[in-house]
């Protein structure tokens, strides 16, 4: 028996917001096995995710606004905390570096490397926590709410890139490129924090 594209099916299973998501997947599988193409399946999956999220958002506009506000508030608070921690850790690591270098011969970039690695881990944890909190607060509409929040993050990022001064030095562009990558990783971490919505299997019965 022919199997539909796995990734597409996984995406619909985890991000499909419709209360009838199971039935949608079943129907798509049935039609795919009747001879539809992979392109057709992917198109249907993407449309089902967008339509489902849009329906949830238009059904609950005030809840969506609250979710977006909550997400950004958490993100800004987290960013402030993150900056404070990084500055503090940096201070400690520099002291430690002076101490360790007398005992173990270390690479001069060790402190910076550790700091970057730690920052990355902390940032990922922060984004994931935002996703997790949004999921906890906005059940049973968590999928649409987290997707709406992530859309605003990506929109803000697109706006920032669009308004970027093209005449600035290559270094500034590199910084923005890192920011772009960081935000995309952040959005993925938010989705991971929301557990890719694995626990909400009761969608069928929620209305």
């Amino acid at each position, binding site marked *: *028996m022919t199997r539909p594209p796995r990734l597409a099916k996984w995406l619909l299973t985890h991000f499909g917001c419709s209360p009838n998501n199971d039935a949608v997947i079943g*129907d798509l*599988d049935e039609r795919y096995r009747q001879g539809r193409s992979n392109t057709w399946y992917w198109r249907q999956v993407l449309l089902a995710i967008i339509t489902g999220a849009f329906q949830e958002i238009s059904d609950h506009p005030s809840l969506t606004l609250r979710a977006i506000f909550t997400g950004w508030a958490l993100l800004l608070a987290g960013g402030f905390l993150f900056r404070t921690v990084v500055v503090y850790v940096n201070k400690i690591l520099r002291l430690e570096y002076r101490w360790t270098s007398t005992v173990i011969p270390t690479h001069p970039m060790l402190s910076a490397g550790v700091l970057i690695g730690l920052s990355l881990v902390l940032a990922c944890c922060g984004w994931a926590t935002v996703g997790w909190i949004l999921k906890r607060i906005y059940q049973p509409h968590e999928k649409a709410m987290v997707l709406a929040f992530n859309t605003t993050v990506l929109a803000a990022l697109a706006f920032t890139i669009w308004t970027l001064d093209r005449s600035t030095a290559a270094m500034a562009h590199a910084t923005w490129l890192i920011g772009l990558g960081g935000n995309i990783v952040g959005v993925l971490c938010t989705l991971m924090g929301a557990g890719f919505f694995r626990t909400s299997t009761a969608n069928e019965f929620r209305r």
Partner: protein
Amino acid sequence: MTKRDQLGSFELMVILVLLRLGEDAYGVPICEELEKRTGRDVAVGSVYAALERLEVKGFVTSELGEPTAERGGRAKKYFHVTARGLKEVRETQRSLVKLWNGLPELQGGKA
């Protein structure tokens, strides 16, 4: 009746297909019938979105059917038009016929 309770054009198409299909109205035949009658490709997600709205308005009810292997073990969801839904379709039909009648632009079947 509030605006939210009225039938949208796609919702009207879906409810007419449900009436045509009778007892066998679940996602796949609904999409096939819509494609056959309108000549356009239909997104399964859009059909379910319309069905959810119709269910919220009380024009349609649903029940879970049997899971099958060709559906990856997932159950079919059958939809039925309620008495209220049928009444709404009749009212919409009456209004549309009144609006259609006597329009010279629509006589003869050519645009």
